């Protein structure tokens, strides 16, 4: 059979296997290689919380979805064009994500009686049982072929079996016309120091996989996804957590203040702490604290001492930090709190994505306790969002919550590398003049911004005390009723006036009309794709996405007023919608919600838009 090479501009591949099968690595390599090839790209790791969940079971299946395109792609894709399933459980867990035209590649050797039983199949034909027997099935004895390929490699049986994913990756590279050079380079870089003996076997098995796919008759078509011409410049692939860490380092450089990160490991935020720990070369100090509370408190101490202070966490950790965040609000110290949201409440589903911490970010502290909230909308945008959050914190003397999501933190996309020359300077309001009476008054405010001055220990003549107790403008303890009310109002107003310093809300599409679709955070790509899709059907709809949740951009009222209805799409049961209704009680807000620990499917938003019209 002569296979056909089909040129396409859009392909979604889902790699799935046991959580020890190396599917995250396989997917990441495929993605990085495609990025360097010049494709548009979006990835979505979908893995269990257990490091090694029970072998062969559906709960232990780890998946990694890669969406590659000729142009920029907005989402990791709803359904896949190819599913790679390394065992019966992986097939069972992921069959529902196959497009009707999908190709399904399985390791035949794993589909023995034991494997089928563990995955809970009741019949002998898993494809019929899952109703995917009409897909293009590629049933290859991957385990046997890997063992055969490496029998003279000198590796032991266990090490050989670990190379199955490379054989599979080789097959995928043939099917999607990917050059192998990038993976060769990766293998050399990764193993040259510690395990040079595994480089040659991995290359061999990768190659054998590629050749096997080329030789068998089972693959009807192969595909090319040619990159379309892009904006000139240097690109890289970047995950959201990495971009967050780098954005904070950029803010450190632009403010001239050392970066201090006090954090406690928590999924899915740990990657930020890990990334910052690497970058001591840029002066970053990381303290892996004894608990979440110590994480934020060491950061507050560092802020008091004059560093750019950061703490990173996810929902449950944010709950633990609440009291200390109140202290940061009260003492009006600059602090960036990164919350990489995951499915809650409580421990919830740690590895799954959600936007359910918005209420906690807005209201989750005792007393009247406002802080600014910035939300990242894509993996690469985490860089700018983190930079903005730090800039606001330092220039407005306030804690700032940066909301990321597991979907963004672990997801990746190509990024046109910016130049730091294009980023603004960050100028904290340092105290420079001692008042005539010789006493620095820490809570006297700038009349325009209501921001207080920052005097840092070590600075002669500015000795002063801050703390959690209410004070007056002079920094003297006060339980005076009128003073307390004034200070509460000023702390809120200070946050609201940040609106004068952030970009206005942009409208994608007509500036007025029947329906404005609204989102915040990581739903950006899905909403954008959904809006594009309904427009193709001739439906007129506009879209506005909020990178700033508190304060809202100052033209928000103007934008909203020009539409009959506003559809708020978010991965919770309506937290942003409730926040907007509270501010705009007379406007007509509709909702599109999902609380499944999964991103939206573009189709879900498309249907919601159609229903809303």
């Amino acid at each position, binding site marked *: 059979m002569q296979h056909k090479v089909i040129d396409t501009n859009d392909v979604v591949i889902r790699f799935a296997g046991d959580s020890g099968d190396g599917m995250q690595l396989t997917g990441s390599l495929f993605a*990085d290689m495609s*990025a*360097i090839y*010049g494709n548009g790209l979006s990835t979505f790791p979908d893995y269990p919380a257990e490091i090694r969940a029970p072998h062969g079971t559906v709960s232990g299946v780890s998946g990694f979805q890669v969406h590659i395109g000729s142009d920029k792609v907005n989402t990791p894709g709803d359904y896949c064009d190819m599913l790679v399933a390394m065992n019966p459980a992986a097939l069972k867990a992921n069959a529902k994500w196959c497009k009707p035209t999908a190709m399904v590649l399985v390791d035949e050797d794993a589909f023995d009686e034991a494997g089928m039983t563990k995955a809970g199949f009741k019949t002998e034909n898993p494809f019929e049982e899952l109703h995917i027997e009409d897909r293009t099935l590629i049933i290859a004895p991957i385990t046997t072929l890997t063992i055969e390929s490496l029998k003279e490699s000198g590796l032991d049986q266990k090490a050989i079996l670990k190379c199955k994913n490379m054989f599979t990756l080789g097959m995928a590279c043939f099917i999607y016309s990917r050059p192998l050079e990038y993976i060769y380079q990766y293998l050399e870089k990764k193993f040259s120091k510690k395990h040079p003996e595994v480089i040659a076997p991995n290359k061999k098995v990768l190659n054998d996989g590629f050749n096997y796919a080329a030789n068998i008759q089972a693959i009807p078509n192969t595909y090319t996804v040619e990159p379309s011409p892009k*904006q*000139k410049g*240097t*690109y*890289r*692939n970047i995950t959201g957590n990495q971009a967050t860490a*780098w954005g904070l380092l*950029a803010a450190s450089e632009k403010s001239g203040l*050392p970066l*201090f990160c*006090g954090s406690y490991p928590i999924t899915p935020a740990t990657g930020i702490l890990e990334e910052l720990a690497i*970058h*001591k*070369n*840029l*002066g*970053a*100090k990381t*303290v892996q*604290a*004894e*608990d979440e*509370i*110590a994480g934020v*408190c*060491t*950061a*507050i*101490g*560092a*802020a*008091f*001492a*004059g*560093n750019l*202070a950061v703490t990173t966490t996810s929902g449950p950790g944010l709950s633990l930090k609440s009291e*200390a965040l*109140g*202290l940061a609000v009260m003492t009006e110290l600059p602090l960036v709190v990164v919350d990489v949201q995951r499915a809650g409440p409580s421990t919830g589903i740690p590895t799954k994505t959600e936007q359910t911490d918005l209420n906690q970010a807005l209201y989750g502290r005792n007393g009247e306790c406002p802080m600014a909230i910035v939300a990242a909308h894509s993996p690469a945008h985490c860089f700018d969002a983190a930079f903005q959050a730090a800039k606001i914190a330092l220039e407005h003397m306030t804690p700032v919550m940066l909301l990321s999501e597991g979907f963004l933190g672990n997801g990746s996309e190509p990024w046109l*590398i*910016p*130049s*730091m020359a294009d980023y603004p300077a960050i100028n904290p309001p340092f105290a420079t003049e001692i008042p005539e009476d010789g006493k620095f008054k820490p809570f006297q405010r700038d009349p325009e911004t209501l921001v207080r001055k920052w005097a840092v*220990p*070590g600075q*002669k*003549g*500015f*000795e*002063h*005390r*801050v*703390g*959690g107790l209410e004070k007056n403008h002079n920094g*003297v*303890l006060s339980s005076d009723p009128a003073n307390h009310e004034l200070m509460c109002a000023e702390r809120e107003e200070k946050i609201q006036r940040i609106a004068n310093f952030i970009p206005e809300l942009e409208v994608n599409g007509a500036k007025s009309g029947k329906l404005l679709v609204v989102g915040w955070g990581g739903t950006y790509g899905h909403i954008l794709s959904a809006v594009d899709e309904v427009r193709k059907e001739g439906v007129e709809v506009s879209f506005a996405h909020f990178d700033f949740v508190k304060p809202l951009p100052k033209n928000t009222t103007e934008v909203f007023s020009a539409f009959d209805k506003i559809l708020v799409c978010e991965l919770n049961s309506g937290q942003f919608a409730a926040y907007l209704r509270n501010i705009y009680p007379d406007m007509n807000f509709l909702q599109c919600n999902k609380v499944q620990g999964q991103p939206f499917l573009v189709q879900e938003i498309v249907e919601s838009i159609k229903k809303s019209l």
Partner: protein
Amino acid sequence: MANLTFKDFKSDQEVRWCPGCGDHAVLAALQRALPKVSEALDYDKERYVVISGIGCSSRLPYYMDTYGFHSIHGRATAISTGVKVANPDLTVWQACGDGDALAIGGNHFIHAIRRNIDINIILFNNQIYGLTKGQYSPTSKLGAITKTSPYGTVEQPFNPGSLVLGAKGTFFARSLDVEIALNQEIMLQAALHDGTSVMEMLTNCVIFNDGAHKGLSDPAVRADRTIVLRHGEKMIFGKERNKGLILEGMGLKVVTIGENGVTEDDILVHDAHSENMNVHMMLAEMKGPEFPVALGVIRDVKAMTYDDGVRDQVKDVTAKSRIHCVDDLLRSGSTWTVE
């Protein structure tokens, strides 16, 4: 260097502790000790940061004319850690009570000690919750009758000394609130020590636990029931200066010089700098009626500090790295260029 006096460290705020509270004496000792610290280490006043948690004693930063941070319950140690790592040139003093440091803040307390971060912790131990008006604390004696233990507590107290040494602490001292001269001496030693210095001050709460330490602090009995330890000096105590400590079998023993053939030569010499902490632990755990309670600097040993470790690592990695700015970072690793 300006010659600083205790007045330089007194703020203009009215001190609001109860009359007779032991905290007054500790504050006075601190305000008198810091000028001596400045003289010894050439520290300007603006280098001092005084940090506290919540509780009666945690009001202390307001009474010091230094940079100060009155934080939240139990978290002073974590805030201090952040301040010191952020700027190791600062000299950090922390005031916290027995509830603040050992109950709600117990985790931060032991981890600061484990890391040996260079901060000076004054632990005000009055064995009671004062600010919330009289509930038992983690140092209240077994059976203590308080508002939340009307029939007596049924839990063993912490001995802060054992806890500090158990966490491999490098500096532990103990004293009584009324020992103002000794307390200045201890505070100066703590300042000279690189690492976490814990100074347990046995303070009297006149309202909710009056006389808790009277059995030690009463001038009539103090010399016989306490022993002041100084590095390099014999462990001698008593009104007549005729009692001493010797090692016998696995433990310490109180002996009388001139009785049973015991001479001054037999008495142990205090070695606060000994790496071996077994004797320090025995000294920290001594209690009446068999033993005197140990005051003074019980342990003071050198070890790497956390803040130095962080600073040195940053210097070291920065010197070796090829990445010197964010532009370098963004272009490091795998990139590709579209012409």
